[in-house]
């Protein structure tokens, strides 16, 4: 099993969610993060003092998937999250050793 962590733009989030559901993803966990990268930030001026805001709001999506679904899910995210502009975000993949559904105590791929 793999854990896929995608950092995407807020404005793409809903599209990504739908793409994920189309490839059969039935669960995911998300939260708001602030990302720093190549994308230029915003200049904010508060009462005459300028601040360069480099940390931009992004959504982090975490999805546990069985190995055989990995490529399909990555493809779905890539295509739905891409706008072609700097700041589209990243996908990270790590090995998942165990996954447990608390309700049923199922383990492994069944629990995803």
């Amino acid at each position, binding site marked *: 099993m793999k854990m896929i962590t995608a950092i995407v733009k807020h*404005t793409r989030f809903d599209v990504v969610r739908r793409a994920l559901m189309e490839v059969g993803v039935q669960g995911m966990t998300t939260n708001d993060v602030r990302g720093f990268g190549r994308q230029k930030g915003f200049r*904010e001026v*508060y009462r005459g003092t300028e601040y360069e805001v480099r940390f931009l709001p992004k959504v982090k999506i975490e999805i546990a998937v069985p190995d055989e679904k990995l490529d399909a899910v990555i493809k779905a995210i890539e295509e739905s999250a891409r706008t072609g502009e700097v700041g589209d975000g990243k996908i990270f993949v790590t090995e998942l050793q165990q996954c447990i559904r608390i309700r049923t105590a199922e383990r492994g791929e069944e629990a995803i």
Partner: protein
Amino acid sequence: MIDKADTAWMLVSTALVMLMTPGLAFFYGGMVRRKNVLGTLMHSFAALAIVSIQWMLFGYSLAFGPDVKGVIGNLDWTLLRHVGLMPNPAYAPTVPHLAFMIYQAMFAVITPALISGAFAERMKFSAYVLFVVLWSTVVYDPVAHWIWGAGGWLKHLGVLDFAGGLVVHATSGFSALAAALIVGRRRDMSKEPMLPHNLPMTAVGAGLLWFGWFGFNAGSALSAGQLSTLAFVTTHAAAVAATAAWIVIEWLHRGKPTVFGALTGSIAGLATITPAAGFVSPDSALLIGVLAGAVCYVALNLKPILGYDDSLDAFGVHGVGGATGTLCVGLFAALAVNPAGANGLFLGNAHQFFVQLGALALVAAYSFAVSIAILKLVDAVVGLRVSADHEDNGLDISLHGEEGYYL
């Protein structure tokens, strides 16, 4: 002769109506998504600044200045010339003329701010500024003159509008409909739910609006006494009846009564009673409130079906409410309640109802049509909508270079 009590009452009422514009800012500000909260607050605060200045420069003169053929005031009172500390008997014989001017200024301010609910989350700020100046001058000032100005032709025809069902709510409401259609739907509409980001802030706004509305309606008596008391009571009666009606209807229809619905109902009741506040009895006001809740509830539930994007329901609440209230004057008005008013249809005077209906049709059509023209013009000059990118990132960062919260 200046009466001190009337003057105190008018000044307090003016302050109350002033507070409604920040109140509207919070009411609307809580409804948008987080990324647009400041842009939405800005609409109200900017209207407060822009229209107050326009009003003192020439708007007041156009609306209430010496009459030109019943259609408009002339420019004699520009920069408040001839508007001094002695009363103007044509409007408010017992308070300084300046007190009447500043009271009316607050009405002129909030009206375009109400419209901003229709195009929230997507309009350029430059376009908004231009729109507000033009709209105040070409829609608000003439319509106010027709109905409230000394010599105004609709006033002459007997149209009754106690505190602005036509002048404030119908003008802004039907202009809002025009704006929703011309400006178009928000990009995110089909992509994500448009959830209000801070309903408690909307509740703060609703509380302040309700509070200020006592100045709006009871202040429109222009004097402290029986008429202001009547308008105060009818205002509250309609507000509570509409709130209760909304709660009940939504509970029955959707299974759960929402707080957002209750707050919406209260504003619908307040908007609806506005033209009638000084002409109807308290029990009629209760009925009008129930009607207000029901009619606006239906209007808002039709919106998703009709598909236009009046983001914060400026038309659904103020247009529909103002129209309903204007007609209710024609139905419920009673000479027994206010001898300066009229009897309505229910007291056998069908004439008044048709006068109200005609005035409504006219004001609605005029507001709608002229607003479309203004919006087309503004679009040609500076462009109405922000870029897609700005819309996606939100107005706060894109237009104002700030963020609402660092919580």
